[in-house]
């Protein structure tokens, strides 16, 4: 479980808070989605969790333990994070890349053992990338790359998964595959925290939705609570309607033309 408790982040030399008192919880067994316009603080939330950004106030807790007191490897063994950007300067094979997920379990000298190998193989299967195993990272498609990154995160073997826009650049099929996988992982007991711009997919798959606006939580609850035209119109500053998707029954946003 990941809990953000009244988190305030202000970047050095900034005049406004990037996060101004955010509280939210990603429970085990649930898919929690954070949505909101560009620059609303979603990625800062993730960066604060992995301690790339210092908290001005508040606390972040993983299984009720303050993140600030955990060491890096301990945190990484519990929470796996798939960040928004990741550029490899020197390509490795898919297998080698997934193996890097075991880093927090290894000491400086200890090499990977049977448990590590098993965890890697299991996560390769879970993410459905077995056929890519020997391919090189720079020779796979964008959709495959996202699934491979997910496999690496699963190899960390934690109980929580945080993903910052994992379906950017993906086509409909690959996007659905990722959402279904995240849904399955949540059902299997993981605490999944997803940052996404795909409101309609989030509304279909998420158990809990949190809408960010200017660094604070503007609405939170079930998809039906959050996906309201008046709320979304104000936050996204764009005319829109929310309909009920006839095929799947979930609320769906339809943006209108500006004039």
């Amino acid at each position, binding site marked *: 479980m990941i809990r953000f408790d009244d988190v305030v982040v202000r970047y050095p030399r900034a005049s406004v808070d990037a996060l101004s008192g955010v509280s939210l919880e990603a429970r085990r067994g649930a898919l929690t989605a954070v949505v909101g316009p560009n620059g609303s603080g979603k990625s800062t939330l993730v960066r604060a969790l992995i301690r790339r950004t210092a908290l001005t106030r508040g606390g972040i807790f993983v299984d009720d333990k303050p993140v600030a007191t955990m060491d890096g490897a301990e945190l990484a063994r519990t929470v796996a994070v798939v960040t928004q950007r990741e550029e490899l300067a020197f390509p490795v094979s898919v297998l080698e890349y997934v193996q890097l997920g075991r880093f*927090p379990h290894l000491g400086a000298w200890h090499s990977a053992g049977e448990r590590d190998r098993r965890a890697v193989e299991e996560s390769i299967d879970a993410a459905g990338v077995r056929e890519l195993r020997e391919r090189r990272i720079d020779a796979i498609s964008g959709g495959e790359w996202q699934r491979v990154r997910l496999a690496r995160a699963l190899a960390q073997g934690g109980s929580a998964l945080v993903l910052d826009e994992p379906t950017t650049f993906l086509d409909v099929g690959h996007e659905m595959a990722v959402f279904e996988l995240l849904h399955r992982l949540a059902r299997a007991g993981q605490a999944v925290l997803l940052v996404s711009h795909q409101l309609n997919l989030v509304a279909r798959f998420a158990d809990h939705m949190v809408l960010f606006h200017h660094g604070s939580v503007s609405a939170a609850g079930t998809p039906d609570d959050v996906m309201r035209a008046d709320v979304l119109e104000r936050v996204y500053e764009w005319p829109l309607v929310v309909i009920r998707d006839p095929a799947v029954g979930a609320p769906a946003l339809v943006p209108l033309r500006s004039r």
Partner: protein
Amino acid sequence: MTLARWLMLLASLAVAAFVAIAVGTITVPLSAVFDAFRGVTDSTPAMVVTTLRLPRVALAILIGAGLGMSGAALQGTMRNPLAEPYLLGVSGGAAVGAVIATTLGFGATIVPLAAFVGALTAVGAAFIVARAAGSLGDPRVLLMAGVVVGAFANAAIMVMLANAESNTVRNALWWMMGSVADATRTQITVLFVYVAAGGCALVLLGRQIDILALGEDAAAGLGVDVDRAMRNVFVVASLIAAATVAAAGLVGFVGLVVPHIVRAAGVRHHRSLVAGSAIVGGTLVVLADLLGRILRPPAELPLGAVTALVGVPFFLIKLRRLR
């Protein structure tokens, strides 16, 4: 990498060293080389081996090993295939130190020390600039800081040499072209300590470098203390580079090209990459020094020029593969 490949690398280094000991203006018969190794040094060829060739080859191995490891670690940490040991101001700072010492009329004992101090001062300055501009945890900032410090050092050298006597200019230039010709026991011992200790540290840091190579955010997510790990790599890599520069002047291209050669052989993990770059770097510098000695005897070509000449084809091949 398989054991067989490691043995092959080591064997090629041994062969290169052996040839470099035997061949030169005076060709030493193999029996004399063995005599020298056994401590029988009463013949002239054996004397040549023990007093000239052996120290020279030993220094060449250490220079190549140090630059190779330093380059491998820096390329991974900075996620930049063009990163190299001299990047953080090491070369510029060392040159300034050496030129100051040369201009003041100091000789072979003081110049290396001055170069070492100059190199470390420059690296320190680059760190300070990077910290003032943002953070050490951003390789781009550090890279630019290194460029700034290097440019300043170059300007300082030009100013100093503009009005210097021609003899000083010549000496300074020779130093900048790199050489292992005047290897002394002290130089070899000191450099050995730096290369061995620094090498162990970089191999220990190897796993963290693998993770750093994913990018700072991803590395933080995997539990690496990004700022600290980067600082450790930069400090160790720069210390090794500074020690090599103090011992042999500027030997270009080795730190840049050697990690690429090792990578081309299929090595991806930085522990193996650092170790492999040590062996390949040693081999490359030994061969470059040998080439420099035998191409136009009795004149010697500057080592730094030969390493670049040997390195360029490798890079061209790599460029072709990138397409």
